[in-house]
C-alpha cells in the first residue's frame, strides 16, 4: 500500500546485508504485528509516527516531552492491539490512542499544577512557555492559542484541537475521543464559547481569529 522504491540488490560478500523494509498495507501490518513478524514493529512506527506526532502536537502544542509521549503512544497501541477490531481502521484507532495518551499527560499536568507540590522550575519551563518580546508574531500567536487551550477542561481542549487544529470532522473527533457525536458537539460548543471569551484578552490572536461567517450547524 505504501509506495516504496525497489532498493537495488546489494553486493554480497559474506551474505550479510542490511535489513529489508516490511511491505504491505495496514491490515497486513496488523497481522504481522500480531504474529510477531520481525520488522513489523519498525514498519509500524515508521509508517505512523508522523501522524501520531501530529495529533499529539495538535492537542498538546510544542512540548519538550514529545519523544516520551510519542513512545508511550506506540507502546500503548502495541499492547492494546488485540482490541483493534478492524485492521483497516488502524489509522483512526491510532488517533484514539494518541488522544488518550495526550489526555493522560494533560490531566497529570493539570493535577500537578493545582497541587503545586512537585513542580520545580524545570517543569514550569517545560509547560509554561513565556513569550519573549522578540519572538515572531506567529510564535506569539501560537503560544497564545495554547495558553488559552490550557485554560479549557481537558476533554473540551482535546475536542477543540482535533476539530480545528487537526481538521478532523465531527465523526472523526468522536471516534478519536471514544465518545458519541452528541457529546462531541456539546464539548465543542463549550470549548468554542470559552476559547473566544479568553482569546479576547489576547491581542496576538486577533489576526488569526479574523475569518468568515459562522457556519450554521446542521
Amino acid at each position, binding site marked *: *500500500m505504501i*509506495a516504496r522504491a525497489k532498493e537495488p540488490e546489494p553486493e554480497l560478500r*559474506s*551474505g*550479510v*546485508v542490511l*535489513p529489508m523494509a516490511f511491505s504491505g498495507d495496514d*491490515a497486513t501490518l496488523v*497481522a504481522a504485528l*500480531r*504474529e510477531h*513478524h*520481525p520488522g513489523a*514493529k*519498525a514498519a509500524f512506527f*515508521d*509508517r505512523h509516527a*508522523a501522524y501520531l*506526532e501530529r495529533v499529539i*502536537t*495538535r492537542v498538546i502544542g*510544542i512540548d519538550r516531552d514529545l*519523544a*516520551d509521549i*510519542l*513512545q*508511550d503512544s*506506540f*507502546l500503548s497501541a502495541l*499492547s492494546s492491539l488485540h482490541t483493534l*477490531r*478492524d485492521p*483497516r*481502521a488502524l*489509522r*483512526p484507532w491510532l488517533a484514539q490512542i494518541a488522544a488518550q495518551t495526550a489526555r*493522560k499527560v494533560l490531566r*497529570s499536568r493539570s493535577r500537578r499544577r493545582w497541587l503545586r507540590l*512537585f513542580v*520545580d522550575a524545570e*517543569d514550569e519551563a517545560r509547560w509554561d512557555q513565556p513569550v519573549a518580546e522578540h519572538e515572531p508574531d*506567529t*510564535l506569539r*500567536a*501560537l503560544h497564545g*492559542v495554547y495558553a488559552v487551550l490550557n485554560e479549557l477542561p481537558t476533554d473540551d481542549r482535546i475536542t477543540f484541537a482535533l*476539530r*480545528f*487544529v*487537526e*481538521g478532523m470532522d465531527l465523526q*472523526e473527533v468522536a471516534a478519536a475521543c471514544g465518545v458519541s457525536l452528541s457529546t462531541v458537539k456539546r464539548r465543542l460548543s463549550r470549548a*468554542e464559547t470559552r476559547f473566544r471569551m479568553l482569546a479576547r484578552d489576547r491581542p496576538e490572536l486577533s489576526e*488569526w481569529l*479574523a*475569518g*468568515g*461567517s*459562522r*457556519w450554521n450547524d446542521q
Partner: protein
Amino acid sequence: MERPVTDLETLGERTAGALDSHATDRDRAIQRARRGFLEAALTPAGNRRVVGRGWMVAVAAIAAAAALAVWIRLPPSSLAFTAGGEKGVLESWVAAPESAPVPLRFSDGSVFSVEASSRARVVAVEAHGASVALETGSLRANVVHSGRGAWRVIAGPLTVHVTGTRFAVRWSAATEVFSVSVEQGSVAVSGSVVGAERPVRAGETLRVRVRDRQLELTNAREAQIQASPIAPPVSEQAAPDRVAENQPSALVPPAAPSHARGSKPEASEDWRPFAERGALREAFAAAEASGFEAACQSASAAELLQLGDGARLSGRADRATLALTTLRKKYPSDPRRAAAAFALGKIAFDQTGAFAQAAEWFRTSIREQPNGSLSREAAGRLIEALKRAGDAAGARGAAESYLARYPEGPHADLARTVVR
C-alpha cells in the same frame, strides 16, 4: 458545495501551520521515540518519566540497586554472535548465496546454518538463547543444551521452541509450507494451524501447510502419518523425512473444487467470531466453507469490509470484489462505501493490474469521502494508478492536487517527481 470558513477554522489552520514551522525538534524527538519504542519491552503504557523531585527517587533506586548487586549475582549479559564470520548485528538481513550457507555462530557454541539461497535474521538475543527469524528457505541448527535454553526459530506464522537439539527448519513464504525435522533432542512448535506447543521428537518431521490448514507428523522409523483433524483423510503412507516443500505431496489430497484455495474449518463454524478477533483470513475461510455468497448477503457493511479484507489477504480477488461490491450496492448511504471503493482500487492495482480501473475506484473513494481517514492514501494511490495506466496528464493533475493538500504526505515525493 463550498461553505464559509469560520474564524476558529482559520485560527486552527494557522495554528497547524505555525506548529509545522516552529516544531524544529520534531525529527529528533521522533527518532528518540523510535529508539525507545524498538528497544522497550512491552510494558503497560503510562508516563514512566520521573517528574519534578522524582530524580531523587531515581538516585536512591540506583544506589539501592548497586548495594543489592554486592549480595546478588547479576544475570549474565546477552550472547554474542557472528554472521558469516563478521560481528552479528540484530535485525541484519542474512542472505546466503546460491553456492554456500552462512553460519550464525553464538558465543555458547550453538550454530544456526542459513542454508544456500535462504534468508534469515537474528531478531533477539538473551543470556541463554536467541530468536532467529527464517524469512524463507531452510536453516540447520545445532543448539548447545544448557538447561536454561531460550531459543526460538520463527518461520512465518509458526515458532519452533528449542532447548538443546539438532534440527532443520524449512519455510516457504510463497507457498506457506513449513517443516521441521529433528535429528537429536526435541523441539516444540506453536502457531498457525498447530495451535499451542506440539512436540516434535528425534526422527520426526512435522510439516504444516498453512494455506490449506493441514499438518502431518511423520516418523522415519515407523513411517506413520498423523493428519490434522482439520484436514481431509489421507489415503497414502508417508514418505521418509526428505519432503520437497514446493512439490505437490502425494500425502495431501486435492482440495474440494468449490473451495479450491480456501482453508477448511468446520462447515457449521460461524465466520463472525474470527472477524471479531481480527483473524480475517480465518473469517474468510469459514465464510467460504459455509457459503460465501450467503455470508455476504447476511453481513452488515462493517462485516462486508472484513470479509473483503480477509478474501484479499487470502489472495482471492474475486471474493474480495464480491464482498466489496455487495457493500456498495446494499448500503448506498453507508460511509464505508468509500472504504470499499478504496479497497476495490487496491485489488485492481495490486492483484489484477487494472490500473485505469484502480484509478477510477480511488477517485470514487475520494469523491465519496473527501476528508475521510483514507482520503490521503487514496489521493496518493490515484497518482500511482494514473501513472501506471499511462495517463500522464491525469497523473500530473492528481499530483498537483495532492501536493496542495498534503505537502508532507507519504506520496509527496512521488507527486513531486510527477509534477516536475
